[in-house]
């Protein structure tokens, strides 16, 4: 049972980040209460260093820890995205927690732990590790959701997320147990091998997979496992929501991809039908309900559900080797587009939010176009990106995605996607119209890091849409050796 340096290399980013978080937990004790910015800075530094390590791993393909974790193009891609999300999450939170009076060092430590769990999720090649990673990323999020305690809505958000999340995790465990029962192994490669042998019970394997799907569906907020999303997104402190909406989704999709695409190709026929239905339902329900929302946080929550549906579309043809690579690369690309747009949009929400949950109605955005033209322009970019209109990353993402879905032969799904995008134009554009055409005196806060984040994400959303080539190539190579 010897471990070599290769093993450490595989999990180096994860180990580094976890260790950093542990150290930060101790260091934070010595940082006086009014100087918690230092903790934030240290946490961001940790993420940045880890990002450096991750980027240095581009191109390395290895397995380690007795086939329990893998380092490959896919994990590097996802890890990089997660780390960037973490940094953006801290940048958004820094001023926000101070302003809302909930600044505590633990915030950043928990966020680091959560990111490390997400990274582990992307690298796990064993169902046990998947489960541990799921817990590691979830528990800090439960706590963070309730971080504005004793504010009731936040408390409720944390409670709901925790209870429902625990329930969903239970499904993952149960499913894992059934898969283990069917194949006698929890290693993904082992499952593939066992599924090929005739003595394995396909039935048990399928049920196990179905239950695991429930758990992942919950994490990515796919309908019908989405019920928690609006309540939690609305109740949680906005900075947490911003991080959760991107991070948890990325990690959930990474796991979904890793587990289903690599371990259950044998079940592709059944799974494709189920994923098809889930994607369609998610797009329809998310977009339709978003129409009647008047609260921006709730609207974005439903929008996040809807986008889970779009990304799910990329997974539908995973059993078809001809289009699989392109399709999943498109899914990854869309995740990137979504992450940046999402952070930007939440950044604007944070800029307008005031204490005691004021300033969160869509009507509060009236007059933003006149009073803060730059902020309104940024928000316009994000809204356009969420609809999938030029010149934004969201459009490029949607073009790739729909192309892949059409190439996979899922005409019906593509049409549902289009119709729901049309519906989504209705509520996103309404925000734009409110900003530019309604009279109002919105007040915003000016915080350096917040403004920087919003500006940066807006620029990335526009510029990368004009030059998406390198990003798309990276996504394509990321999925190359996955299967």
């Amino acid at each position, binding site marked *: *049972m*010897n471990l*070599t340096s290769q*093993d450490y290399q595989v999990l180096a980013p994860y180990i580094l980040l976890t260790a950093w978080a*542990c150290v930060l937990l101790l260091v934070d004790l010595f940082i006086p209460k009014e100087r918690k910015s230092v903790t934030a800075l240290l946490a961001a530094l940790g993420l940045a260093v880890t990002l450096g390590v991750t980027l240095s791993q581009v191109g390395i393909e290895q397995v380690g*820890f007795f086939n*329990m974790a893998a380092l490959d193009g896919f994990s590097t891609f996802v890890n990089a995205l997660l780390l960037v999300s973490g940094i953006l999450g801290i940048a958004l939170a820094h001023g926000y927690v101070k302003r809302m009076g909930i600044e505590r060092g*633990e915030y950043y430590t*928990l966020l680091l*732990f959560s990111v490390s769990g997400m990274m582990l999720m992307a690298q796990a090649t064993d169902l*046990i590790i998947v489960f*541990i990673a799921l*817990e*590691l990323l979830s*528990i800090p999020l439960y706590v963070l959701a*309730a*971080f504005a*305690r*004793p504010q009731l809505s936040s408390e409720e958000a*944390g*409670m709901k997320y925790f*209870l*429902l999340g625990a329930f969903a995790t239970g499904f993952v465990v149960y499913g894992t147990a059934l898969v283990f029962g*069917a194949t*006698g192994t929890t290693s993904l490669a082992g499952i593939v091998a066992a599924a090929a042998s005739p003595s394995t*019970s396909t039935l*048990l394997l*399928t049920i196990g997979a*179905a*239950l695991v799907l429930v758990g992942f569906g919950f994490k990515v907020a796919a309908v019908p*496992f989405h*019920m928690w999303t609006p*309540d939690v997104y609305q109740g949680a402190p906005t900075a947490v929501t911003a991080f959760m909406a991107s991070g948890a989704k990325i990690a959930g999709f990474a796991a979904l991809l890793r587990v289903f695409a690599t371990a259950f190709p044998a079940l592709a026929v*059944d799974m494709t039908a*189920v994923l098809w239905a889930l994607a369609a339902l998610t797009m329809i*329900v998310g977009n*339709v*309900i978003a*129409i*009647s929302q008047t609260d921006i946080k709730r609207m974005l929550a439903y929008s996040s559900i809807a986008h889970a549906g779009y990304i799910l579309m990329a997974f539908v043809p995973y059993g078809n080797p001809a289009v699989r690579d392109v399709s999943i690369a498109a899914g990854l690309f869309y995740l990137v587009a979504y992450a940046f747009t999402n952070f930007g949009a939440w950044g604007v929400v944070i800029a307008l939010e005031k204490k005691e949950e004021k300033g969160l109605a869509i009507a509060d955005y009236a007059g933003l176009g006149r009073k803060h033209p730059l902020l309104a322009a940024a928000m316009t970019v994000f809204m356009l990106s969420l*609809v999938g*209109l*030029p010149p934004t990353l969201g*459009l490029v993402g949607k*073009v790739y995605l*729909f*192309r892949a879905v*059409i190439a996979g032969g899922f*005409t019906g799904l*593509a*049409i549902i996607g*289009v119709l729901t*995008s049309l519906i989504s*134009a*209705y509520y996103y554009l*309404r925000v734009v*119209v409110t900003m530019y*055409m309604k009279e109002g005196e919105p007040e915003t806060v000016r915080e350096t890091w917040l403004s920087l984040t919003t500006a940066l994400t807006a620029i990335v959303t526009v510029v990368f849409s004009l030059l998406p080539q390198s990003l*798309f*190539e990276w996504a394509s190579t990321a999925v190359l050796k996955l299967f």
Partner: protein
Amino acid sequence: MQDFILALPLLLLGAGTLTALAFSRSGWSASRLGWLLSLFALTSFLLILYAFTLVPSGKALTFTLPWIPSVGLDFSLYLDGLSALFALLITGIGTLVVIYAGQYFGGDASAWRFHAYTLLFMLAMLGLVLAGDLITLFLFWEGTSISSFLLIAYKFKDEAARKGAFKSLFITGGGGIAMLAGFLFVIHLSGGADFKTVLASGGFLRASPLYPVFFALIAFGAFTKSAQFPAHIWLPEAMTAPTPASAFLHSATMVKAGVYLLARLNPALGQTDLWFWTLSIVGLTTMLVGAYLGFKQNDLKPLLAYSTVSQLGVLVALIGQDTEIAFKALVISILAHALYKSALFMSAGIIDHETGTRDLRKLGGLRRQMPLMFGITGIAALSMAGLPPLFGFLAKETLLASATHPSLPPIVDSLFPLATVLAGALILAQAALAVWGVFLGKPADEKHPPHGHDPHFAFWLAPAVPAIISLLIGLTPVEPQFLVEFLADAAKAAYGDKVKISLALWTGINVPLILSIVAVTLGSLLFWQRERIRAWMTDFLPNFTTNALFDGTVSGLDTLSRTATRLQGGRLRVYLRILLLSAIVLVVLFNGIPRQISLPALTWNIEGLNGLRMFSLVMLTVSALVSVFVRRDLYAVIALGITGLGVAMWMALEPSPDVALVQLIVDILSTVILILSLSLIPRKLRDRANELLHSRRGMVRDALLAGLAGLVVAGLAFTALNTRPRESVVSPFYAENAKPLTGAKDIVGAIVVDFRGADTLMEILVFSLAGLGIYTLLHYATRKSSDRTREEPEKRLKPNTPRGVFNLPTSPMLHTLAYIMLPLAFLLGITHMMYGHDQPGDGFTAGVIISLAIAQWYMLFGYYETRRKLAWLNRNNMIAAGLTLAVLNALGGAVFGGGFFSPVDYGRMLRLPLPPGFYLTNSFLFEVSIALSVMGAATLILDNLGHPREEDLEADADLAALEEKQ
């Protein structure tokens, strides 16, 4: 680099936009800036003209810039006859509009914004018609939607304007999305996005079974953009825009985008029955509806807008035809309409600007005050009416010729001319209405006639240019050869084959001419009887507005959305129900459990069912039932605990002692934690919740759901038993390898600390994290709310009457027990750690057992007593120590053994005298670290939960309010 010239006009317009922005603070008047910016537009016009001379007749000039080569997407431009026709109209009229807008806003120094938007829009529009592939076209397509929104929203006064702007943005922007999807189908099928590929694969595209799908999507996009019925509602509403914008957007540019797209794709997608019928029906309906609605208007701008709608219908219907003459009519109509409509819009703006109103009922008799405007408007209106010798006459003649073409199918061959004549008559009446209402008739209010005079040169120049061109084309005795060739080129690109064009007004007495005379007569009649007919129309005929359809769809969606939101009421129980149900559905759907259960195959084997197993089964079932039906939550928790014990007992009989042990202690610990948590919730609130929980309807529903879930799980268990291999595939491996590889006799112990040691390390991390989380949440809140109560209880309560959980007094008997149990628990825990490798039990159970003993103290003595008596228990240190020890220990393996985590026997290494059976290995240390962190986290949880709360005033108030409501 010759083809780079195609990109130049776009760059130029981009530069123009930036220039406008750069002059934002210059204080330049709108007119001065307008003159400057018109140079950009004019140069673009000339550049395109020059570029077109480079294009060999019937061919195209292309310019390609790789965008995403790996997916075969480029940014490309394409210039042929068709795009040149549109591009020249856009930049030509654009130049005039920029000058005109400068005069319109006059000295307004803040109009730079409007100029910037106009140039941006021109850029998007020009890009749209110059686009060389479908994706580039889409980019600019949506660009026009967005920039036109900026123009429409430039000045707004009321809610209606906002709604109009939103509607136009949503309808045109949304249509673009559908169109994009259609494009993606086309790209997928034809294998490329550029027009050369697409147009070359026409036969293949038309034969595809997906043809109806992408045709519908693309047509939807084109129809919404070109304001075809029933999507025509946005165009009149967009008239809230400043007039220069209307003149530009709604005469030659934005609304023609759909027409351009259909014409462009006609060679690839056209010439099918579906194409013919859809375009004809939609186009002709739009033509009639637009003409009809226009005749009812009193405001000049909506009147012109509806006649535009009508004209767009004509163009769409023409593209639907598969005849040469139709495409001849198409190009002539496009040109004629762009000329007279822009002139009319700009004139309307001048009239509005000078007199302050556009209402035909208030205007009248202005021919003396504004003779020049009368002339310009008159010429343009004559062209609109389709009277000779103007260009509009030619357009109408060719249109009628195409409507009476012999190749039309039956029924249609009489309907087409009929509809065209009717629409022609209505349009003529409208043109007359406009001229008469403004310049000739008497003003409605004789005492207050409208005042106005001709504007200065630059203002009237803009409408005069297109009006005069309309006149010149009609009047020239010799056909201008370059124009004929140019139009023939454009028509050929749209038709896909050669089209012969002639611009002769007089072609002899034929059917079109006769129909034209009928239309003129009918139109004059309509105008003569306008008062009566319009009154009658208003009273009896419907409005043909599909606003109701649009609003209905939107509000229908909204209602649907609200209904669906109701499920999202915030109640956790509902969420859980949905989650559970969908999981059940998923499992059942996935594999049809019922399929697998074939009852005859069942063999009941009750041999192994001895008394103890029977007992544990009964205990399990009964306590599970009790936990559901008992009314008090506390009892339910206890019953649930008993269920757990039943499972533990079953496991012990199996025999798998390790699992039984863990199950037993975890079960007890969670029961304790549950009880402590319950004690935190005010009694009243709990009672209330229990009542709600046990309402009859809820009981039935929950029983059904629980029964269903139970059945599914039972089915699962059954299939699992039936289908999995009898012999474990895993156990033999561990049984064989545990001793030789790890030195452990207990397989479970070996798995936990050796085989999956890294997992365990991560797991204790997770467990500690949970403790940290709870601490973070509870600790801060406690400090906030209990600053006051912190010391008080200790003063109030005598030390010898400690109060336990729920603030109940506890008996001294139990206290003694607790004193004895704690050291015993430590002893037991230490044994577990020492012999965990060979016996059931390990560091985890050790930690939990000790925690349980501590929990007992919290239950019996209450928080303050316990904290006082067990002050040495510092949970934070324990967690830190546990985690640090775990890592150090693993590193120890690297130092003394074969690597991180590899086994090392320190006892043998240091030759320590140790009791038999106990080995001081790093496995043991690992067990210790596990125990420490588990203990730390568990006591952290207990400590925070056991902390008494002050009365929750807020919750009580809520409760009182609830009770009052009932």
